[in-house]
């Protein structure tokens, strides 16, 4: 299992005295798209917060074999673990271009930043069209593109996308999922955290199902989406 990019073993974490995550085990391999699905309140976002060290917890967290538990959020970010936060969290008053450039805030390599910017525009031609527009004036789908583009500007090795589909039309969600596949082909590993279970499993290689703070099922995306238990819980069939 040491070939995994990210490994989480026996993670407990929570807010104050209340543990939200109980004994969570997940692994993400290089170049994979892994879906982390489950309903609202299952602890998915808490897991992301624990991974990015905004929230401390006990258990083993390793990224490329490096122990994350003693690092600050800034150090975790520098290793290449980058989040696309839930609700997009754009800088609304700033232009699309400025938002993208904020993703590269920690980078000093001007030329390489311009190259990344060009590749983000290639991935999202809409963002290029709208580059001088204020991010707050974009449509929901464009805002999500901007949020993903901003994260890509940080040159992530592991991109953690939180509730990408929230509030978006299914056709837009499909487009964005396709983009994630493209990003993966470019060598970025993706951890996709979703309430929209079946949309996420469509593009993922493997998946984990979380319920009330722990992983209840895992397997290949195909196996999970055909699993009667998962179908009953999330499709009501």
């Amino acid at each position, binding site marked *: 299992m040491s070939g995994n990019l990210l490994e989480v073993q026996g993670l407990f974490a929570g807010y104050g005295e209340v543990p939200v995550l109980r004994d969570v085990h997940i692994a993400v391999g290089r170049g994979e798209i892994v879906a982390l699905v489950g309903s609202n309140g299952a602890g998915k976002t808490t897991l992301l917060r624990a991974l990015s060290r905004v929230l401390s917890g006990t258990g083993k967290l390793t990224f490329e074999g490096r122990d994350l538990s003693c690092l600050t*959020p800034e150090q975790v*970010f520098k290793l290449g673990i980058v989040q696309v*936060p839930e609700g997009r969290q*754009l*800088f609304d008053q*700033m232009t699309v271009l400025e938002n993208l*450039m*904020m993703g590269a*805030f920690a980078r000093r390599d001007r030329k390489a930043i311009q190259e990344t910017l060009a590749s983000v525009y290639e991935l999202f031609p809409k963002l290029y069209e709208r580059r001088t527009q204020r991010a707050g004036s974009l449509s929901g789908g464009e805002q999500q593109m901007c949020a993903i583009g*901003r994260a890509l500007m940080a040159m992530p090795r592991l991109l953690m996308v939180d509730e990408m589909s929230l509030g978006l039309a299914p056709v837009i969600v499909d487009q964005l999922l396709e983009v994630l596949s493209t990003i993966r082909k470019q060598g970025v590993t993706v951890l996709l955290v979703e309430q929209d279970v079946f949309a996420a499993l469509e593009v993922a290689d493997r998946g984990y199902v979380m319920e009330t703070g722990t992983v209840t099922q895992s397997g290949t995306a195909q196996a999970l989406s055909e699993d009667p238990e998962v179908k009953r819980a999330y499709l009501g069939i």
Partner: protein
Amino acid sequence: MQLLAQVLVNGVLLGGLYALMALGLALVWGVLNIVNLAHGALIMLGAYVGYYLFTLLDVDPFIALPIAMVVLFCVGYLLQAGILNLIARAAMFNTLLITFGIDVVLTQLAQMLFSADYRTINPGYAGANFMLFGITLPWVRVLAFAVALLLTLAMWLFLLHTRLGRGIRATAQNLGAARLYGVSPKRIYALTFGIGAALAGGAGDLYGVVSQINPYIGATLTAKSFAIAIIGGLESPLGVVVGGIFLGIVESLTALYIGPTFVDVASFGILVLVLIFRPNGLLGSTT
């Protein structure tokens, strides 16, 4: 007519300097959500830096200006890194208390070190004027006005077009998201407060040239800066310039037609009116 024109010009010239004074306060307020009650004291310190450079080392006040700004930047950076970061993003009341405390300490220190005497920075060209369309223009005031506007413009360009300026604006708009992309808020806060203090220092140096200084000028200047920031709005440096010039004109007109003792009544009366009718500032959005 001639008198009115002269008074208006005086008001505009004074207003440019007011704008520079308020700019640092507005910046710190907008980014850190701190109404810095020690802002006037920082202006006062800047004025004394200019004064001592001039009297002891014979440095021209306009050459002393960048020095005063650097000194005050360091003072501001250290204040934020050492004290104010402890209460970053705390309730407004806590920040008011602490900055009020800093104001008292700085004012008392200034009185002990510099004495309570009135001082003025008085270069040889201090009394020189030139005439334009029958209006008398004192050189130092025109220069101070031009420098104040240039600094405001430079500040604006810095915020709009540099990496750090972007970081400062992003932190002001969405702290959580800024942190996700490697922005260290404490560094940005210290930097922002340092820049605010540097602007205060520059304004203080200019103030010492056009007016008299003593350790107690801070409180009034904080209040004026506050009023200008409210009148102009916190959204852009342009608003602060409009607010500053507006206040300068109002004060000059009041001094002429109503009486010099009513200057503060007029400026703070307008502050109240703006708060009632245009709470986002003269240029601010009405929604």
